[in-house]
């Protein structure tokens, strides 16, 4: 059976969060299993399931070219701005 990744939104207004994976015959069954496996303690108000094989993931071996070049470009970070007192971060 194919593997599915499960995303659950815990409250209205929040984002869906990856909670785990499960095996199912198809997307419809995956959705029902996700309900039974991942929301039985009222964890969610919305569920997404997606075939794991449909996820394109960056590779560990790419991290040098993907992420290292960002490390020496501090001007891209918003740290040079003064945050007004009224803004809560």
């Amino acid at each position, binding site marked *: 059976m194919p593997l599915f990744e499960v995303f659950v939104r815990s409250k209205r207004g929040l984002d869906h969060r990856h909670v785990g994976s499960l*095996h199912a015959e198809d997307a419809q069954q995956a959705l*029902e299993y996700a309900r039974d*496996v991942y929301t039985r303690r009222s964890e969610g108000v919305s569920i997404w399931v997606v075939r794991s094989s449909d996820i394109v993931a960056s590779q560990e071996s790419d991290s040098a070219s993907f992420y290292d070049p960002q490390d020496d470009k501090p001007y891209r970070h918003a740290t040079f701005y003064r945050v007004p007192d009224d803004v809560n971060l």
Partner: protein
Amino acid sequence: MSPDGESNDLFAYAVALADDALIHGQRLAEWVSRAPTLEEELAIANVALDHIGRARMFYARALEVAQDGRTEDDLAYRRDADEFANLTIFELPRGDFAVAVARQFLTDAFNVPFLEALAASRDAGLAAIGEKALKESTYHLRRSRDWVLRLGDGTDESRRRMQSAIDALWGHCAELFEPFAAEQRLIARGVAVDRAALEKPWRGTIDATLADATLHVPTTQPSPYRGRLGRHTGYLEPLLADMQVLQRTYPGQQW
């Protein structure tokens, strides 16, 4: 009718509905550690717990009426097979996975309209249980119907097993639509659901689903057993022996 007669009827009715839910829950619980996949095991266990929770609510309502000092445990664990009023479809052996699906589907398709009607009962306690349980059963039916379609319209093997499971249980479905004496008096008072009237909508659901699943409606004759009247199959006693062993061995034990 005397108030006593009324409360005796209500007690018997609530206990009968509780027994249905308890015995079904117990059969479903047997799937824990035996289900085909981990995901399915959790799903079945959820359904089993829904039924056991439902049994507790019905027992609690019965005991509110009786006020005789008995507890839910007394009703669940200290009665013998001939005192149980569950319909026999729930006590039949666990069987293969197709049997679990068939039992679930045939009774979910009944429970949905039944609980819908129970939610309108003139007894506020029963109405509240009906409303809560209806949401659960609506989901159960979605799941069991889905499995009937998968197995029926699946491989030759799954289709053969699904059909023989439906065939095996079919003769026990007549009981779903037969009210017992106390129930009949409660129907007249708007407390109990007129279950005989549910046969037609039930058949509608069954016929449509079996057709979609490339299965046929069996022509099996009704079984001679009548669980409501205490006329059980031989399968109930071993189930109770298993379920009641702790309270029978250590009476009154709590944890």
